């Protein structure tokens, strides 16, 4: 049966690895946003050659499981690249997650850029504004609001995907759970603890999202 005392005992042991999850999430979110913005802008302006390249890239990243991508990168490419071979598993996971999530985020961002209507662009041009002034002062401020909900969804997925880091041997929440499990075989309590921790993190993120959305909504 579920032993509350053991659950409370194992919870802090597993939670002590939450810093790995945070590190991965923050680094991967940052670089995924970067990748996402670059791809979205390429898509927005349909820059020749680059546009076709990014479409193929996004299609592959969205069309294959991230576990396969992780193994392909860390074990496959490593055979031919000393650079990848010398990476720590943590960095390798961060790289793959940034590339993967960047593809998803690019779609969220591209949709948001496109949501700003043609009329406002024409108004800006008619007043003598340049493309850069238009993007910075009119399009991006409005696109952020539209992009917020899908981007938060992407970040939630990213947090959960960090649990795959353990597959390359990164000692995160899942790693701690596995070690604990091998010792006590009390998987019921252990994985309940893991789920609770993820759930709390994502719940808090949801509150942040709600707060930001409310703030944006009252703006205009």
């Amino acid at each position, binding site marked *: 049966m579920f032993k509350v005392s053991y659950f409370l005992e194992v919870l802090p042991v597993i939670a002590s690895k939450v810093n790995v999850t945070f590190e991965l999430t923050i680094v991967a979110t940052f670089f995924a946003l970067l990748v996402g913005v670059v791809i979205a802008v390429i898509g927005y302006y349909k820059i020749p050659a680059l546009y076709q390249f990014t479409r193929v890239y996004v299609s592959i990243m969205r069309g294959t499981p991230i576990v396969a991508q992780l193994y392909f990168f860390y074990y496959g490419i490593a055979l031919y690249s000393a650079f990848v071979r010398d990476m720590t598993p943590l960095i390798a996971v961060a790289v793959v997650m940034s590339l993967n999530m960047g593809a998803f985020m690019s779609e969220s961002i591209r949709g948001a850029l496109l949501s700003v*209507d043609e*009329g*406002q662009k*024409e*108004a*800006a*041009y*008619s*007043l*003598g*504004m*340049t493309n850069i*002034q238009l993007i910075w*002062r*009119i399009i991006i*401020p*409005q696109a952020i609001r539209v992009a917020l909900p899908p981007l938060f969804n992407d970040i939630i997925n990213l947090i959960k995907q960090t649990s795959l880091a353990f597959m390359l041997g990164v000692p995160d929440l899942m790693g701690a759970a596995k070690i604990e499990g091998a010792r006590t075989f009390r998987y019921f309590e252990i994985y309940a603890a893991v789920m609770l921790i993820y759930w709390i993190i994502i719940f808090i993120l949801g509150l942040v999202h709600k707060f930001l959305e409310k703030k944006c909504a009252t*703006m*205009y």
Partner: protein
Amino acid sequence: MGTETQLVKIEHLYKEFDADTKVLADINLTINKNEVIAILGPSGTGKSTLLRCLNYLTVPTKGAITIGDVTVDAEHHTKRDVLELRKHTSMVFQGYNLFKNKTALENVMEAMTVVQKKSKDEARKTALELLDKVGMSERRDFYPSKLSGGQQQRVGIARALAVNPNVVLFDEPTSALDPELVGEVLNTIKSLAEDGTTMILVTHEIGFAREVATRILFMDGGRIAADGTPEEIIDHPENPRLKQFLNFVNRK
């Protein structure tokens, strides 16, 4: 209307979207300071295209446009030419097209601070005067989403005036408005006309054009089919297509 200073000159302007669709064919036109020009005509005859060619929102295929001291030749134009041309005009749109992330006041200030690099204080002062002129000063801190169509359009007019343009282009400014809101916008435009603002106005409001315009152009098939005073065009039309058009409009 007093001084006959030439302000806008259009020479041999053509616009073709492809070989089969010639929207504008050899438009030649000179507009003087303080003229209020109304462009009438059936749908799809190139009225809006002509207007949009004047600030290169639509790039013409051939021909030259001069506004103030800037001349842009369609076949050899640069980005900088277009930017300069746009600084001499401004436009009021059918769909208002206010910047949704900015208040009424910020909409009017935007081009003054960003394009003309005026100080915030100076821009604010001018913007408040303009909002007052269009009767919108009480709602200066409202975002466009909180304004009615008529109010948005009046802010749009203030925004267009803010850059102190040589000529203000109106692209069917009342077509998207509910009938009860058309009056407030037309009155605003009328007061600008009385101030001597040079305007080109694409409109379907024949009565309004008759009353406010100093000159009316009738477009048909991508050409200017008739050009004259409101009396000549509306009261004593000679062109058969123009007669037909006026009959059709009056019957509605």
